[in-house]
């Protein structure tokens, strides 16, 4: 027997606001963040908290300057999302001023100067990250290696490191990320087999990084299940990276890493599910989304393999953000009731 509940009018539409979407995205990020804290240490958590505080403060200040309501814009959690995405992209023990400068750049210049949420042509978090990467190349490439060091440092020590209370040399225990390490050594003409003997490499990608990426993957799948994001962008990003990586791996497996290495290293999964899918600066039609996804995937691989920076995701996202107006202009979704 089917139970039909009827209510009298007025019928309410589904109560899904920006803040609900943003909260769900934050929840989906949690498994990945927990994995990062487990493998990389408390620095991740401190960075995230610092970033959120700075982002909300900066957003409120701009709102006061623009004579807008503070509560409306701060409670939509979009600044928090930007802060969290930027914070997890930073090296875990980056000094505090790195986080502050990056967040201020992302929120004030990347988002509010363009008109705030909904008007920003570039992903603010990636804009902040790229500004930091080209401004402070030394601090931005000092990643800790998972496991070796992070398990031995407690919360207070992490706090002291980030706020530079005692001048402990961070470089003493930082090292290149697996992608960077592989690229550097391949350029030195070391053989692939010898390089992969190093302890930073795991089964598929980097030790620890593969688990972190798997956790982000689970969070991303939940977002698709909840219909917060559509499958188009994540699937095309991952497929296009897999495709071009397979092509080059098949062409020369001594010079190019396996497709699985590219999928499980760096920020691939996190970007595919959480960054490229930003509804504000991504294409609106499904075909447009497929194009954006392919572009990000291919550019990520190209910049990662032949470029000079540790990972190519941020640059790929910004480059594809620039193409969104053109894509939206030429590929318009069919309007209901018209033949188009």
């Amino acid at each position, binding site marked *: 027997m089917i139970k039909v509940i009827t209510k009298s009018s007025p019928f309410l539409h589904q109560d899904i606001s920006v803040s609900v979407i943003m909260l769900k995205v934050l929840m989906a990020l949690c498994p990945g963040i927990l994995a990062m804290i487990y493998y990389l240490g408390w620095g991740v958590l401190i960075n995230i908290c610092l970033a959120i505080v700075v982002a909300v403060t900066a957003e409120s200040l701009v709102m006061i300057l623009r004579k807008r309501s503070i509560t409306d814009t701060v409670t939509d959690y979009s600044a928090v999302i930007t802060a969290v995405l930027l914070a997890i992209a930073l090296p875990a023990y980056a000094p505090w001023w790195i986080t502050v*400068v990056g967040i201020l750049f992302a929120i004030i*210049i990347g988002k509010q100067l363009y008109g705030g949420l909904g008007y920003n042509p570039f992903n603010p978090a990636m804009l902040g990250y790229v*500004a930091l990467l*080209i*401004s*402070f*190349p*030394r*601090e931005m490439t000092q990643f800790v290696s998972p496991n070796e060091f992070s398990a031995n440092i407690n919360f207070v020590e992490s706090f002291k490191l980030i706020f530079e209370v005692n001048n402990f040399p961070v470089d003493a225990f930082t090292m290149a990320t697996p992608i960077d390490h592989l690229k550097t050594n391949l350029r030195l003409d070391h053989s692939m087999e010898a390089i992969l003997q190093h302890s930073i490499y795991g089964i598929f990608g980097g030790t620890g990084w593969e688990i972190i990426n798997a956790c982000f993957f689970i969070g991303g799948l939940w977002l698709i299940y909840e219909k917060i994001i559509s499958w188009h962008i994540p699937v095309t990003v991952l497929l296009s990276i897999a495709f071009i990586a397979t092509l080059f791996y098949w062409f020369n497996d001594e010079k190019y890493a396996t497709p699985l290495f590219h999928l499980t290293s760096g920020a691939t999964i996190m970007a595919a599910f959480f960054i490229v899918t930003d509804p504000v600066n991504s294409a609106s039609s499904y075909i447009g989304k497929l194009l954006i996804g392919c572009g990000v995937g291919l550019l990520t691989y190209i910049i990662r393999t032949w470029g000079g920076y540790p990972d190519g995701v941020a640059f790929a996202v910004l480059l594809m953000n620039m193409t969104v107006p053109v894509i939206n202009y030429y590929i318009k979704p069919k309007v209901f009731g018209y033949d188009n």
Partner: protein
Amino acid sequence: MHIENLKKITLNGLWTNNSALVQLLGLCPLLAVTSTAINGLGLGIATTITLILSGTLVSLIRNLLRQEIRLPVFMLIIASIVTIIELTMNAWFHELYLILGIFIPLIVTNCVIIGRAEAFASRQGVFLAFWDGLMMGLGFTIILVLLGSMREILGKGTLFSQADLMFGNGADWITLTVFDNYSGFLLAILPPGAFFGLAFIIAIKNIIDNHQSHIK
């Protein structure tokens, strides 16, 4: 000579019609050389001298010119002046000349100069043309030095570094270290820093203008 007229030209060059902030002319050298305040000052002075000389000369010969060939003649005058300045800088400020490089000969193509020759100097008396060149040049120089200082302080933590390029070896005392042990905000020195910096200066000018018009 009307004092009112001179005042108007002065205000025009320095503020209301500032070549860098309002006309947005000559952006290429403006953005490219302002990585330090001294570089900006060097190019600013060279541009100012060109503006003064070209304005005066164009005004002097304005009654002899036929309309049809005025632009080539302006270009000839400007190119000769810039060549003189280039050779002078090469001889006396060789280091600065090397840093500014291509942007010294490129003063020829700076739209401010041909623009002022066409719009002002070819229709006005010699003294007014001279004064207009000086004020337009000063307005341009002030913005170059301001932008250069902003980028230098943010990017390197110093102000007026390499002052010896311009004022000789005795001028090292001018260099200020604003932040000690500063690791440098590279973005300010790189090209994006120039665009951001200029945009902020223009925004500040617009805020001041809005404020003024509200008071009136």
